[in-house]
């Protein structure tokens, strides 16, 4: 019974379009997810500088540094979002959440790159990142490590590590601050004729 079940299970996984690739490392970077409960970065009051007095933010920063990644806080991400280089494609935002969450809303102009299903979008995102001076990768925020995985994926694909920044507070912190959000496809909120 157990053998028949196992044979069926692996065959079904192989045949399923959503099946997992057994040989692939879905969590590059080595560090395992924290056993602590999910914590989201607490948003400081409006105007206050982001500091790492918040233990959750400090934990995220440490996690990123352990993986050799550079963290960026919300103020830094917001500054890059408003940077003129963003319009020129020299600053690129990459959303590491899955397609459903991306379509519900993302940072305007952000590229979609789900690290678990990168095949479809990787070449497109890589092309954009190769020209960029700064690439900001984010996911939901807090204990979500999908941004880490995506940043490592980009690093392994040849994007210089010094150009990669991981926004640890993620989309949750972004929306908590009522910053701009774009629904549906990338640049769908832009007026016709606007480029980038």
């Amino acid at each position, binding site marked *: 019974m157990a053998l028949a079940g196992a044979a069926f299970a692996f065959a079904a996984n192989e045949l399923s379009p959503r099946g997992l690739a057994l*040989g692939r490392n879905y969590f590059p970077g080595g560090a395992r997810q924290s056993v602590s409960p999910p914590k989201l970065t607490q948003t400081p009051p409006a105007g206050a500088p982001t500091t790492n007095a918040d233990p959750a933010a400090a934990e995220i920063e440490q996690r990123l540094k352990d993986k050799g990644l550079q963290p960026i806080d919300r103020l830094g991400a917001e500054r890059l979002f408003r940077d003129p280089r963003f319009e020129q494609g020299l600053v690129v935002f990459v959303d590491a959440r899955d397609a459903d969450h991306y379509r519900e809303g993302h940072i305007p102009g952000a590229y979609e790159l789900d690290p678990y299903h990168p095949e479809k979008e990787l070449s497109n995102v890589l092309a954009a990142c190769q020209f960029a001076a700064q690439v900001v990768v984010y996911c939901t925020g807090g204990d979500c490590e999908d941004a880490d995985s995506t940043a490592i994926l980009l690093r392994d694909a040849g994007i210089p590590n010094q150009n990669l920044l991981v926004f640890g507070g993620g989309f949750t912190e972004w929306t908590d601050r009522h910053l701009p959000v774009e629904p549906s496809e990338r640049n769908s909120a832009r007026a016709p004729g606007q480029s980038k």
Partner: protein
Amino acid sequence: MNGNAPAPSAVPFWPDKAMDLSAVAARWYLGGFFVYTGLEKVADPVAFLKLVRQYDLVHTAFLLNAIAAALPWFEVFCGVILLAGIAVRGAALTLVSILIPFTGVVWHRALVLQAAKGLSFCAVKFDCGCGTGEVYICEKLLENFGLILLGVWLLAGRGRQWSARYCVLTRAALSQSSQPVVPGAD
């Protein structure tokens, strides 16, 4: 019919019948439960992979992927087998064998979360990767205990009525017993 009272063994004894019917209901419930929870995980294997990873049970990508890839389909397989009633005791034994260690692992994880959050044990709520979303740990443990009891009950041989195998065997036995004896066939 010769007017004699039927033998006591031929009289359907209603508590026994009720017990059999309850066992069939238990089989269908257990089978349906595992088909449902298995399909919930199959629908989003990456989410299940992340949940399995939280338990920190294995440290190689292949083993982690193999568990996350196979377990949901394995549950679906056992659930369908139970619903159809093909190998009831085998499926029940398999499910009990996986439920017991899983319950221990979920319990352990809840203790870790309890220590981290400083909550009372029953106030710990998390997605254990069981296919039922976020649940309070005490409810989950009770549910698993109930599922294990149902599985053990089926293991005792109950609940085989209205099962594919039972029907096939009964029909085969009936057709054999009603075969006309052909004189000189030997």
